[in-house]
């Protein structure tokens, strides 16, 4: 007889999207989003992350936080692949108005226009905003 916590099986896999709209370091949102994504990754759901507005700054290459005495958590974005979080979407318009391009980002991403990103949001079962 199996205990409830030993039950296995496919379960229901839902599409989770984590939406990141805040710059790193100035507020705690970016770091908290990463924490939640890494925890949620353990539940084997269909996870994606979207970066738009100031959220695109989270992925900027070359972050060096020695001078401000805070932890540089940007290498964590490169580790997400190891947790099966492989779908990272970045909004093209958000990059453009900040003078950034895909080359400025520290991890491979899919750059999408606003309309395409909106369609992707519409496909999700659960959206979590940071």
């Amino acid at each position, binding site marked *: 007889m199996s205990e409830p916590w030993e039950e296995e099986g496919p379960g229901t896999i839902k599409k989770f999207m984590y939406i990141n709209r*805040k*710059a*790193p*370091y*100035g*507020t705690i949102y970016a770091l908290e989003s990463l924490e939640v994504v890494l925890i949620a990754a353990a539940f084997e759901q269909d996870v994606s992350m979207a970066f738009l*507005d*100031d959220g695109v*700054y989270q992925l*900027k*290459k*070359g*972050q*060096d*936080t*020695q*001078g*401000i005495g*805070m932890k*540089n958590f*940007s290498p964590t974005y490169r580790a997400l692949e190891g947790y099966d979080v492989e779908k990272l979407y970045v909004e093209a318009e958000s990059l453009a*108005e*900040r*003078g950034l391009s895909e080359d*400025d980002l*520290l991890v491979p991403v899919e750059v999408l226009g606003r309309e395409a990103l909106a369609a992707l949001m519409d496909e999700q079962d659960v959206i979590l905003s940071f």
Partner: protein
Amino acid sequence: MSMLHTVNKSPFERNTLAACIGHALPGSAILLIEDGVYAALRGTAHEDMVRGAVADHKVFVLGPDLLARGMRPEQVIDGISVVDYGGFVDLTEQHDKVQAWV
């Protein structure tokens, strides 16, 4: 007397910098810190507003906050001076008052 204004919000997220520029008297100093440093960079949608501020004010940006965000002093708009924490202290000492726009 002379005022030092500090701005710590991204110009994309809040109108804090615009409010500061609108109220800062000519000759006063503006120091961009924390997420405010994104305004100091060339090539953003807010570059014209910031260039306008540079024409009427002494504008500074905090270097450690730039580096933390993956930005380099070379990317800063001409006329903006990069300062370190010691420079921040000097600025507060050189001005009569500090107005923090948050």
